[in-house]
């Protein structure tokens, strides 16, 4: 029996075009879905790593706060009466007075300086304020702007 030869199916040109565009569309959808999936994975990964960074920074902040509290406690301990008494007796070799003198002083108390005088300009804090160019420090960007014309 002779092989049946089937004539080749002839696909009209329009149908072939539609098939090609269908495959393209399918390919585009696949690429889109893959892209979205990859984007989601990427974002999820970013969120995770950011979460770990935030966790680390939170820990750092907690450590800084704890260190602040420790320093406050240290300041309090250093200014405690027990320590002042110990320093006076052991380091400065002071002792309680044997005699008590009362002297009236009718002059006003000296003005309290926040810095030792050797760090202040001659004339005190007022002289520092009156010095030319003695402006308070400015942020970096403002200083840069000043260098540009029209600012």
């Amino acid at each position: 029996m002779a092989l049946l030869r089937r004539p080749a199916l002839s696909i009209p040109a329009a149908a072939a075009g539609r098939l090609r565009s269908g495959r393209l569309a399918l390919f585009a959808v696949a690429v889109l879905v893959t892209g979205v999936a990859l984007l989601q994975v990427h974002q999820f990964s970013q969120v995770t790593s950011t979460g770990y960074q935030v966790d680390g920074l939170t820990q750092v902040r907690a450590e800084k706060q704890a260190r602040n509290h420790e320093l406050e406690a240290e300041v309090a301990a250093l200014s405690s009466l027990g320590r002042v008494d110990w320093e006076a007796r052991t380091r400065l070799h002071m002792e309680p007075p044997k005699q008590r003198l009362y002297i009236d002083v009718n002059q006003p108390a000296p003005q309290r300086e926040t810095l030792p005088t050797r760090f202040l300009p001659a004339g005190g804090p007022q002289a520092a304020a009156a010095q030319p160019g003695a402006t308070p420090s400015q942020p970096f960007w403002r200083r840069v702007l000043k260098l540009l014309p029209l600012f």
Partner: protein
Amino acid sequence: MLRQRGRMYARLLIVAALFAAAGGAITARVVYVQLVNSAHYKAAAQNEHFGQQEIRAPRGAILDRNGYPLATTVDAYDVYINRPDWQNVADAERAAAVIAPVIGQPAVGLVREARKEAKGLYLAYAGLDFDKGAALRNADAPGLRLVQTTKRFYPEGDLASTLLGFVGRDHAGLTGIEADYDRELGGVPGTIYFERDSIGNQIAIGSERIGQKPKQGGDIRLTIDRYIQRLVEGELEAQIAKTGALGGTIIVIEPKTGAVLAMASRPGFKLSQLNLNDANVALFRNRAVTDVYEPGSVFKTLTAGMAIDLGLVTPGTTYNDTGAAYIGNATIRNWDYSVNGTTTVTQVLQRSLNTGAVWMSGLVGPEKFYQYVRAFGIGTTTASGLGGEADGLVRSKNDPNWTPVDLATNSFGQGIAATPLQVIAAISAFANEGKLMRPYIVQEVDAPAAKRSFSPVVVRQVVKEETAHAVADMMNQVVEGIPGHLAAVPGYHVAGKTGTTTGATLADGTVHDGNVASFVGFAPAGDPQMMMLVKLDFREDRLGGQVSAPVFHDLAPSILAYLGVRPNGPQLVTTGN
């Protein structure tokens, strides 16, 4: 052929129907779980995936009147061992070699204690310094669990221990100011929600969120001055050691405001060596407000004040002292068995004559006497805000078993029980133009809810202003009218009265037939800025004038100079100690 195809279709239909039924059941179940009963399963999932943890709020500080911290909070770590991780001996020993030196325990003991059980967590150390804990966190120690916490720190050491009190392991106040103002100091705890894995560990995936931020506890500012408190505690301990006293109390107040500048009691306890397992809880009491005693002869100032206020006597009024007063079948004699003849009211106080006090109480009468006693605040709490404050005990005419002998003995401070704070508050009326002030120890509370300040409170005008001046003058005569009085302070006019009575309080809180020696005084007499009560307990008989008055003499110059009170006399005054 057609029949075969028909059977095939039937079988296909049956299979399809079965699949459809199964799919329908699954769909129904999905609809039920995700729509109908979604809330329940969502909650179960939340509960499974998310955990919550309470964040303890940092505890507020306790400050003295000038803002110096007496108690503050620092961060710390509690060191736990996960027992299952230490079931392997090699791992346990390796971890213990790292942990034990940091927490100051022997490694062998640590391993033995942690491996006593196979499950759970073992608390190896509570309150490890934050720096040490942070270093330990990075160490290779299997089974180590560090939980961040806080602990109390006392910059002034053991100063004012009975007044400040302490907190327990759960950081709640147990005694003293820590307990009385626990709500303000404790703040409001917060809550943190986090996602956790299948075994409950937190996942750092950014899902952690704070449900409620913790609100830091407020600070408490006391009226106590740390310098005066330190002076008072040092002097009290020195005097107890010198005289062999069982204990004592010293209170220093501003008589015009009622602000307590210092309050010290012994025996007490050390905040730095606190042992919560100590059975002798009596040491934790603030005896200045919890313990009552018979005031003794200091009460004669109140009796004299009543009689003067009622116009019955003046400081110069006299009576005949025969050395004894007879009330019913009872005979009351002077403490020194003296017979003084014609004696003024002022001399009654100077010589502390019981017969004179009995005479004055007879003039006043029981009705008025007990009215004045109550008006002076004896027998009721002072409402100072300190916990555990005792009422005191006054038995008046309407009480059962009262007899006229009670009136007589009450007149010189026996048969009446009052706390040291009640006594100094009552007598302070004579230093404040007759006004009784409410003693207070908390100046300001800076709580999360609101900031509150406390001002002096005038309880009542107990006696007239001129009566108060008269009694103050007589008390001045007690000190300066007797040469060599041990309470005299060179350069200042001092007013005061000694007291000696029975009933000393032991360290365990029981009272035995000992002796209480006290002195109450204020200075300067004309414009009082400082008032002090000194009370010492003894097993044997000791006089207030001998052991308590010298304490006033030693402390007053330093306190008055610190307060900037000018001494009397010329511009340059020299006093030798």
